[in-house]
């Protein structure tokens, strides 16, 4: 029973980790919190619904479509809501936060209008297939989600540490001006970052659709807030912290539901935010700098 819950928690947590990676990449490079990330994730999930349930196409096409659409959304987000504010005199550091909140409620209500408020089923051919190992039941979907998530994390880590574009991204995250002096095209790096982060959100959307078989316009908000909780837990802009934090939150939530009061499941994330910010603003895995939390 405990082991089964642990597997459920890790599945959920691996999706959280993917969402949180999107947040943390954008924060690392731009120093801003993309409040629209949750809604981009939600759009990804709806693309999945459209492709698999409405059009009846196979799952892999859903992935490609979701990546394409959310990447485009990321590009538009950067052009419309972020770039106009950058380097402008007298713009408060809260401005990007507020304008991405604007994008988030625009997207949420847009999809509310298009798809309606209710839950949409997410069909896939192997949703019910399960394996019995001893007394433990594992669904194939869970394994698939876990494998995809881990693969994504590995690819992202490799890309960040080994490729030229990834190195440019890390240099920009370290110090934008220095990176620019060193010949990094920071404008392009920033756009790339937002696009990749958004595409990660889109993939996570499909994974959630597969895991819970239901998609609705409000799911972006709660996922967005959880993603925030995770990057605060793992340390802002910290890639490994986002992965670990995501898994941790997934397991914690599953345990609350299994052994506590399921109504408070969503509160776990928010209480985490408050406590971590107050007790250890640099996050569980962050470096201890006096500037953290400032």
């Amino acid at each position: 029973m405990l082991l089964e819950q642990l597997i459920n928690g890790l599945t959920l947590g691996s999706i959280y980790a993917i969402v949180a990676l999107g947040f943390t990449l954008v924060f690392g490079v731009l120093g801003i919190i993309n409040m629209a990330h949750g809604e981009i994730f939600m759009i990804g999930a709806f693309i999945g619904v459209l492709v698999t349930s409405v059009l009846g196409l196979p799952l892999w096409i859903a992935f490609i479509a979701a990546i394409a659409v959310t990447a485009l959304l990321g590009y538009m987000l950067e052009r419309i809501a972020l770039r106009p504010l950058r380097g402008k005199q007298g713009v408060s550091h809260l401005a990007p936060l507020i304008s991405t909140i604007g994008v988030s409620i625009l997207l949420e209500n847009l999809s509310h209008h298009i798809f309606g408020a209710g839950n949409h089923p997410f069909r896939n051919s192997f949703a019910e297939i399960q394996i019995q190992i001893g007394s433990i039941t594992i669904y194939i979907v869970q394994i698939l989600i876990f494998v995809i998530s881990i693969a994504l994390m590995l690819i992202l880590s490799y890309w960040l540490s080994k490729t030229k574009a990834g190195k440019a991204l890390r240099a920009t995250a370290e110090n934008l001006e220095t990176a620019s002096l060193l010949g990094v095209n920071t404008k392009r790096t920033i756009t790339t970052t937002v696009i990749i982060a958004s595409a990660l959100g889109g993939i996570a959307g499909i994974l959630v659709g597969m895991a819970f078989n239901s998609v609705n316009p409000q799911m972006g908000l709660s996922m967005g807030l959880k993603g925030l909780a995770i990057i605060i837990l793992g340390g802002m802009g910290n890639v490994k912290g986002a992965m670990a934090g995501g898994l941790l939150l997934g397991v914690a939530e599953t345990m609350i539901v299994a052994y506590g009061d399921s109504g408070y499941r969503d509160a776990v994330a928010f209480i985490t935010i408050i406590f971590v910010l107050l007790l250890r603003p640099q996050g569980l895995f962050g470096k201890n700098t006096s500037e953290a939390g400032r």
Partner: protein
Amino acid sequence: MLGELLNPYHLQIASFIMINIILGISIYITLSSGQLSLGNAGFMGIGAYTSALLTIHFELPIFIGVILGALVAGIFGILIGIPALRLSGVYLAIATLGFGEVIRVIFVNWESVTQGAVGLSGVPHLGRELFKTVTAMGFEPEMLGLRNNQVVYLMVLTLLVVINILLIWFFIRQNKSRVGRAFAAIKMDEKAAESMGINITYYKVLSFTQGALLAGFAGALYAHVMAYISPADFAYHRAIEILIFSVFGGSEVIWGAIFGATFMTILPEALRVISEYRYMIYGVILILMMAFRPQGIIDVSLLKWIKNMIKSRRRTDHGTGTKKHN
């Protein structure tokens, strides 16, 4: 004559404008010391539930309930405001957003007290209670040629207008004083303010608590104007709405929040089409404002311009007046 003009529905909208202005001031006052709190929907909820529960279960008079609701929200403001001092900018915004969500989750789950997601109905209605009082004193609506429900809503609105005038007066005076200057100094440069002998801790907690108190006050009034509250009334969307009041209207001056709250309440009512797309339009407004006018519609220079306009108009009026005499 008066009886035909006073549509209870319009009176109700006007009352909402008044409540929203209080909410607008609540986010403005916290921002005036440089802190962005997205938790005001949560404080509003605390005020609303406190007052509603006290008046329902203990049959306290509404005005005591409202004051206690505001005070409890204010106490939560201190409790959150002190640890939140360590945070600033986006971190504070997120922590307060998290606080608001926690409050909402508690309202949903603490069913024995809050009735959960269903919400609390049968909250004593401010207008009807006032009506009972005045009729007990011998007043009859017919004396003014009004129907009963017109008087009910009119009294609520009148009371709220008086409250608003007092609040605006209070905060304008505070702004022009030593306290207001300390808030502004902290907002502009915290280190320099500290070097000038300003106790940062005290003033930041003070402005945060004032914001919480006001939001709780507005929430308590809301509960007694609506006579029904549910956790959804104090969720994320409410927090965004309050943010819009200040971002759209202007976050530098108190008139910005007042204008923003008024405009944003009338807009969806005036244009039904807009009402349906309300939140989408909110989203677009936030994006456009940040790109083109981050300080909001009303800012210091616009206010100065308006003042000069009024002055010069007076002068020309005066001028034509003397000409006539000649």
